[in-house]
């Protein structure tokens, strides 16, 4: 019987490719997970925040006197109090800075204005409601295209005269940066010479990851020891510790960040939010632990939004459908502060993967970012830094091109794919794709769904006046940031660490700098170690999220855990195996050169009967180490990946549209993913299901919208619609395997592929169903109302 998981079956040695059940389930299925709000400390105070009702306003006065009269309210802090501690503004991940509490003005609706600390959460909430704030409303910028009008109001008074930003010159007081890649001149020339050209404008709307567990934090300053312990819903505890040390001046050794079980992250739990800072400051000032847990409204209105890319694309091709060049211009709405979570060198993330799976000889992409009166963010929502926008853009555009050429969208793709023999493939925008077999993956998907029969069915239905569409997306992702030569966040290189300690009895504890939020690391890391060392999966415990114990790492987001920490874990295990081999040679009384690792055992070459297991070696490492060899069996490995990984996939979607209501029904959805080597196929499939569902949500439901005054129109789950079991389609999944040539296990990462790749498949299917009505593009979310209006405008009868 296993001690860790009393309720579950024992597993034994289980390496790569095994669909073993998850070790972490044991606590979750009985309600014994420990999420942030489950942690209560003695003498703990609660914090509630006061928010601005205005999207843009001067603050004339803040009166906390009524709040302080409420029994249990201990203190109210504003920007003035934070300024005394040097914490009224904090640096953002993108080289900008942001207010912690509104400093003189508010720049978006629901911005944090004051923090109230009290003995109970009720008193804190009552206190926040009693704080009186006097505002003078200012003109609001909602439309990013109007942000840089000559007469647009100044949003950021603090930098209005500072025309050199973190990413180069700014050309207007609301302009943040301009970024471009590729040769504009050569691309324009190639476009001008192209026989066919298409142009399309498309918006990837503002969205929000909305994990079911909101963000939260407990600051716990121990004045006796000078140590600050911070419990935080963070996907990147080590980076948070470093940032906290930099902004508070507390030495890093005196800060311990603990990221407990996380109820979903999806990028939402990467940045540092004002609430965290206030709870920590509150604890330092009041000398007691302070807990802050967001309300859902706070989550949706103030923390890390995603997307909001307004894109224009132009593609050139020959008459027979060979693409020649692409040019992209994007306007990025970053809200009031540039807090986008991107690697420092890449202000538009990895958007330059926008050439996708196709062999574009010439390409140029340019992005301008602007300030508006909206919450800051720009997080990688189940996405590797703007890869979602890029994939949607190219996959949607390929359908627009196919329509223009009157070509089948599958045929157009097959004609333009990067071919297997072209890898490693240098893209026109500067990436080196590691591996892929796009044609194979698409053909598997087409076969599985019965593509050509569906096209026949569609033709018949169209003749009868019925609406049916088929959408394809053959995306390529770029994940696993990243190699230290190019990738850092605030100067910290994006490598990751793994530590393995093998105990004398053959069990082990392994730790990583990543932090899972449902991805199953407690199982997959154990599988990697089981594979590499031949230890029982149940005897390997995985620990992440405590900066006092885990090796440094930049965390779990952007599908980077397996490409980075997974590589570190494999290489740490191999380093252990190198040492273990010396001990095995000692036990087998042969030279090290005569020992080989076969079937998860050390065997004397040519004498299969003479062998020792890793359990025996582990015992010897502590009881009978070879003379002259350092005893013990543990190591830490920091893995700096040589390149990113490029997972890809082929998705095909079939929709039927109700002519009367505009309702789109997803009849089938086939997703064939290629994420290289698969560690646990059950977990990979689960990730794909979840990612497809989020892609579905973005395509049809989720949108963070604003009215003209900057009122947030999706501030709770009755306005920000998430799919339930009822509307979520049934997913059909499969995979091809093209290992990454440079990753120690050949793995590429999968958590985000489905969210990245699927929106274009849904939209392509809907547009395909309506193409004969002259429809060429519909912006997401494709609501029933949008489709209904198109149908009515097209004069389609309801029945």
């Amino acid at each position, binding site marked *: 019987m296993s001690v860790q998981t*009393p*309720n*579950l079956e024992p597993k034994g040695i289980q390496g790569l490719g095994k669909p073993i*059940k*998850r070790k*972490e*389930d*044991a*606590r*979750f*299925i*009985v*309600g*014994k*997970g*420990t*999420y942030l*709000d*489950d942690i209560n400390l003695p003498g703990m105070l609660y914090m509630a925040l006061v928010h601005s009702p205005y999207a843009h306003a001067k603050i004339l006065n803040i009166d906390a006197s009524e709040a302080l009269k409420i029994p249990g309210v201990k203190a109210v802090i504003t920007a003035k109090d934070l300024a005394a501690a040097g914490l009224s503004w904090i640096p953002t991940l993108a080289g900008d800075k942001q207010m912690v509490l509104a400093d003189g003005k508010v720049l978006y609706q629901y911005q944090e204005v004051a923090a109230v600390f009290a003995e109970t959460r*009720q008193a804190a909430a009552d206190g926040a409601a009693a704080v009186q704030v006097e505002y003078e409303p200012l003109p609001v910028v909602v439309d990013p295209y109007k942000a840089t009008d000559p007469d647009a109001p100044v949003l950021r008074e603090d930098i209005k005269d500072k025309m050199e930003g973190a990413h180069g010159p700014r050309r207007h007081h609301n302009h943040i940066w301009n970024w471009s890649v590729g040769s504009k001149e050569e691309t324009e020339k190639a476009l001008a010479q192209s026989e066919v050209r298409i142009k399309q404008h498309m918006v990837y709307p503002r969205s929000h*990851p*909305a*994990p*079911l*567990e*909101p963000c939260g934090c407990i600051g716990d300053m121990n004045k006796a020891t000078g140590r600050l312990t911070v419990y935080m819903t963070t996907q990147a505890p080590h980076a948070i510790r470093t940032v906290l040390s930099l902004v508070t001046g507390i030495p890093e050794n005196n800060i311990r960040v603990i990221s407990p*079980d*996380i*109820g*979903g*992250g*999806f990028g939402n739990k990467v940045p540092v939010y004002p609430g965290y800072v206030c709870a920590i400051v509150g604890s330092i000032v009041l000398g007691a632990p302070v807990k802050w847990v967001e*309300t*859902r*409204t706070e989550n949706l209105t103030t923390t890390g939004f995603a997307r909001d890319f307004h894109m224009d694309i132009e593609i050139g091709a020959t008459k027979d459908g060979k693409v020649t060049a692409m040019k992209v211009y994007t306007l990025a709405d970053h809200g009031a502060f540039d807090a986008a979570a991107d690697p420092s060198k890449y202000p538009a993330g990895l958007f330059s993967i926008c050439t996708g799976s196709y062999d574009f000889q010439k390409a140029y992409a340019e992005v301008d970012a602007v300030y508006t009166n909206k919450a800051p963010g720009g997080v990688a929502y189940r996405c590797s830094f703007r890869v979602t926008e890029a994939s949607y853009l190219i996959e949607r555009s390929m359908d627009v091109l196919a329509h223009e050429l009157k070509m089948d969208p599958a045929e157009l793709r097959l004609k333009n794919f990067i071919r297997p023999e072209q890898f490693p493939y240098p893209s026109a925008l500067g990436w080196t794709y590691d591996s892929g077999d796009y044609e194979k993956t698409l053909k598997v998907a087409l076969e599985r769904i019965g593509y050509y029969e569906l096209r026949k069915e569609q033709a018949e239905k169209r003749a009868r006046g019925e609406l049916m569409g088929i959408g394809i997306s053959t995306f390529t992702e770029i994940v696993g940031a990243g190699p230290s030569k190019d990738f850092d966040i605030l100067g910290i290189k994006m490598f990751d660490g793994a530590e393995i300690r093998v105990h004398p009895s053959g069990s082990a504890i392994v730790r990583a700098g990543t932090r899972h*939020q*449902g*991805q*199953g690391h407690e199982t997959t890391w154990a599988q990697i170690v089981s594979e590499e060392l031949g230890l029982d999966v149940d005897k390997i415990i995985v620990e992440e999220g405590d900066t006092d114990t885990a090796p440094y790492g930049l965390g779990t987001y952007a599908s980077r855990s397996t490409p980075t920490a997974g590589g570190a874990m494999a290489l740490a295990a191999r380093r252990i195996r190198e040492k273990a081999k010396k001990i095995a040679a000692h036990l087998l009384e042969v030279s090290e050169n005569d020992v080989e690792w076969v079937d998860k055992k050390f065997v004397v070459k040519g004498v299969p009967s003479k062998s020792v297991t890793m359990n025996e070696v582990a015992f010897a490492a502590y009881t009978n180490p070879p003379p002259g060899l350092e005893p013990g069996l543990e190591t830490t490995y920091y893995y700096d990946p040589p390149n990113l990984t490029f997972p890809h996939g082929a998705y095909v979607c079939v929709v039927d549209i109700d002519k009367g209501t505009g309702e789109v029904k997803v009849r089938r959805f086939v997703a064939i993913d290629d994420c290289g080597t698969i560690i646990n196929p*059950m*977990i990979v*499939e*689960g*990730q794909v*299901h*979840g*990612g*497809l*569902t*989020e892609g579905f949500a973005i395509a049809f439901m989720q949108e963070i919208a604003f009215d003209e005054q900057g009122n947030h129109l999706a501030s*709770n*789950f*009755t306005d920000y619609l*998430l799919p*339930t*079991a*009822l509307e*979520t389609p*049934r*997913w059909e999944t499969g995979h091809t395997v093209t290992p990454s040539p440079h990753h120690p296990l050949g793995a590429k990462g999968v958590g985000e592929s489905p969210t990245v790749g699927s929106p274009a498949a849904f939209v392509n299917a809907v547009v395909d169903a309506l193409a004969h009505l002259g429809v060429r593009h519909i912006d997401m979310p494709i609501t029933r109302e949008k489709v209904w209006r198109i149908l009515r405008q097209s004069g389609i009868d309801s029945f």
Partner: protein
Amino acid sequence: MEITLNINGTEKKLNVEPRTLLVQAIRDAGLTGTHIGCDSSSCGVCTVVLDGKTAVKSCTMFAVQAEGHSITTIEGLAQGDKLHPLQQAFHDQHGLQCGYCTPGMIMAAYVLLQHNPNPSEEEIRFGLSGNLCRCTGYQNIVKAVQQAAQMLQQPTGAAADD
């Protein structure tokens, strides 16, 4: 004010404000398996079972309204070390990822199977449509409920083949 709640068969005396929601009272009583995910009774992560037969979102009830009723939470489902078939099935079918929605989802499924011991996929999807999940896409949750339905119909409680 002082109230007594019967949670998982144990009487708990609690001191609550009249406005305290049932979910908060349950959590303050130390049973943190029941979660909070929204302010609008939309997400269902706080679902508990009232009087053994009704699934309620415990954020839609005041603690004082629950006095005199019995409440079952996720912590009250297993019999000692023996998991309830739903718990076993969620594990077997990979019906959970981050685990945050899982307790509410299992409690909603518990009541669903009481009312309909052999539900179709559509009925399961409809029955769980008050509970949101952001990780799984629901597909494995549906499979888990189907497995649990089978297990509950076999008196031995033997796990179904997967």
